[in-house]
């Protein structure tokens, strides 16, 4: 039960950040699962995607009610991103855990620096 509460609270933190920043929450879910729940890097990525879907649904409903949803660009982006996600996931399965983790870390730093520079 203690563990379940811990897991739910990790989800809560990721959800807060997801709605606040308009992201899926995977950037916090993955490190939390790997560091505190002992989940392997690959399974953390797969599980993160499974959490992201209902979280993004909840977030976009609220954004939609507030009039901040524009469907046309979303549709155009989704065409490419669905294809990309299939390719990326196939590729991920072949990468060793340590390299996958390093790739993840470098990605976060690069994106973060870009956001601050702008």
């Amino acid at each position: 039960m203690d563990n379940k509460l811990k897991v739910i609270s990790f989800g809560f933190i990721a959800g807060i950040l997801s709605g606040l920043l308009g992201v899926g929450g995977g950037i916090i879910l993955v490190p939390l699962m790997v560091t505190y729940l002992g989940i392997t890097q690959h399974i953390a990525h797969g599980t993160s995607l499974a959490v992201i879907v209902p979280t993004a649904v909840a977030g976009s409903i609220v954004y939609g009610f507030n009039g901040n949803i524009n469907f046309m660009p979303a549709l155009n982006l989704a065409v490419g991103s669905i294809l990309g996600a299939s390719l990326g996931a196939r590729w991920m399965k072949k990468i060793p855990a340590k390299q996958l983790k390093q790739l993840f870390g470098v990605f976060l730093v690069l994106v973060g620096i870009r956001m601050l520079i702008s």
Partner: protein
Amino acid sequence: MTIILITLLAGLVAGILSGLLGVGGGLLLIPIMIFLLGMSQHAAQGISLLVIIPTAMAGIWQLHKAKMVNYNLALYLACGSILGALISSTFVQYIPAAQLKLIFGVFVIIMGIRTILKTLKS
């Protein structure tokens, strides 16, 4: 036409990162929408959330077959994250865009440095 090509390509790159890194792809989608498509931070975030849904589902489709999705764990995480997302996306409308960008950047850098440091220690 150019805009449509940029959009498709941006979606493709965000999707590859999503499937590869287990994220939604919003981290990449939001700056692309702001800088290349000229959208406001709030509009970009709303679209990002919408695009994330089918993207993550496509990734799950691939990883499910490889047994890389822990659905039991995902269920408990999702209980918390849905609640969190509902609270914060309601609240976000009252936060100015400039502050949002700052929170966004600082948060991502801290998480990235932590992750890299962990692989160097091991």
